């Protein structure tokens, strides 16, 4: 097993652990925006798709990469917009500051 894959496993384990600790503290009030936000962040897969679409190794790979960039960009743009729209609506009845 190549060493960079072992490194990756460590990173995955640690990031999963950080995710667990951070997400557990999210208020149930915000579970819907949480899901749309993680969805937008997950669309970081676009970076892999961009390289694929741009490196021009085969027509097949370029076509798949280009469609993948479109799909991921939809999620990035749509995900951030809707998350922010939702969060803007949450107001408290107590005067803030």
């Amino acid at each position, binding site marked *: 097993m190549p060493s960079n*894959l072992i490194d990756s496993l460590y*990173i995955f384990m640690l990031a999963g652990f950080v995710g667990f600790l951070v997400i557990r503290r999210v208020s149930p009030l915000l579970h819907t925006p949480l899901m749309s936000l993680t969805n937008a962040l997950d669309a970081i897969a676009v970076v892999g798709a961009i390289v694929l679409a741009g490196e021009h190794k085969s027509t097949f790979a*370029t076509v798949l990469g280009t469609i993948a960039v479109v799909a991921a960009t939809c999620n990035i743009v749509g995900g951030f917009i809707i998350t922010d729209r939702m969060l803007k609506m949450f107001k408290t009845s107590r005067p803030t500051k």
Partner: protein
Amino acid sequence: MTQQALILYTIEFVYLVASVLFIFSLHWMSSPATARRGVFAGEIGMLLAICGTLLHKDIVEWKYIVAALVLGSIIGVPLGKVQMTAVPQRTALSHAFGALCVTLVGTAEFYLQSPNISPFMMVVLSMEVILGSLTFTGSLMAAGKLQEILPQRPITYKGQNLVNLTFLAISVGIAGYLVANPAATHLFPLMVFIPLIFGVLMIIPIGGADMPTVISLLNSYAGLSAAAMGFVLNNKLLIIAGALDGSSGFILSVIMSKAMNRSFSNVLFGAFGQVQATAAAAGEQKTARSATAEEAAGILSAANKVVIVPGYGMAVAQAQHKVREMYDALTKKGVEVKFAIHPVAGRMPGHMNVLLAEADVPYDRLIEMDEINGDFPQTDVALIIGANDVTNPAARTDASSPIFGMPILDVDKARTVMVIKRGMSPGFAGIDNPLYYDDKTLMLFGDAKAFVNNIVRELSGGGH
């Protein structure tokens, strides 16, 4: 050469900064006061990562990238501006898009690298493609059910789990063969295609009330497949983002399955929606008392403490704005009004909170189940709007009930219970609700929006 090395370091550094911003982004989601900062951090991280990636030395062709980014943004903007009631299906659709991206990249990588793929690499590549394609069709099915293009009713048949598991086993078997023989490129399309069918079959037996669990689970799968893609591309940022998304979806599915009283293995194997309408009407005719909007308004304005329990029916009737008007009218009369939010009320985690926040109900009035349950004995009126199973006392008392053991809102402990409902038909699971025949329960028959509107008119008009 040194310039190339510099670019490489720059990209890695930018990815590192983006990872930090992503973690902070989720950290700030912990409270509504800091949550918008979290979105901003996520946006900056994303922008940095994309700009950094564009420096990549292997990129020789720009026109497709630019065209795809522009097209994606054009489609993405309307997807970000959908109505709040359409958020569950939009979320399911975005899981499908995310999974599509991952599956396509995985497929392309396989054909570019085959047959020089190490066994471990082939394992993660298979995970990426299998999880990606089943999440793609599964999420499309979920979105179709939520948009009511597809029937919401669960479709079950004998041996369903066996059929589903067979499909999954075949795709895992193909993956195993490809690990040993990565040159067998002709088998790869099957490894994409069979999970696509599995994704459809997985969602067929699922009914509307199970959607919160399913959406969370698909969220988790989408995250895990993105993390697997990170392994394939040796991209740490992608592994981190995928792991964060995967654990987020996982935690939400655990919370949802607990709130539905389903075991976790039940969730993992996708065998939800299996609750059958076992107990048919038990013969004896029970009577329920009903009341008019005028009477309901009288009781509400005489109360000190009112707890409103919203459910999916409120979302269907689009009654949230009228409910807010009722909240305002009662608050003006000095009545203390709170909202009791069951974790699985609605069609996705947190669905009710978003709808009520959209209608300008302050979020400090939206109280979680565990916190509000202690308040019901001191509550004068519990008003249920479009919720059913989450208020059914049989879950506490009747061991033969299919929902026995499910945590519920203890509305039956309030002094008076009022239920706005279209008719006496049982809820999604076909379970009778003994609450409706309780002596202190008043049934308010009618459409939620129209009925609440009548109550509001009585509250504001009837100044006598």
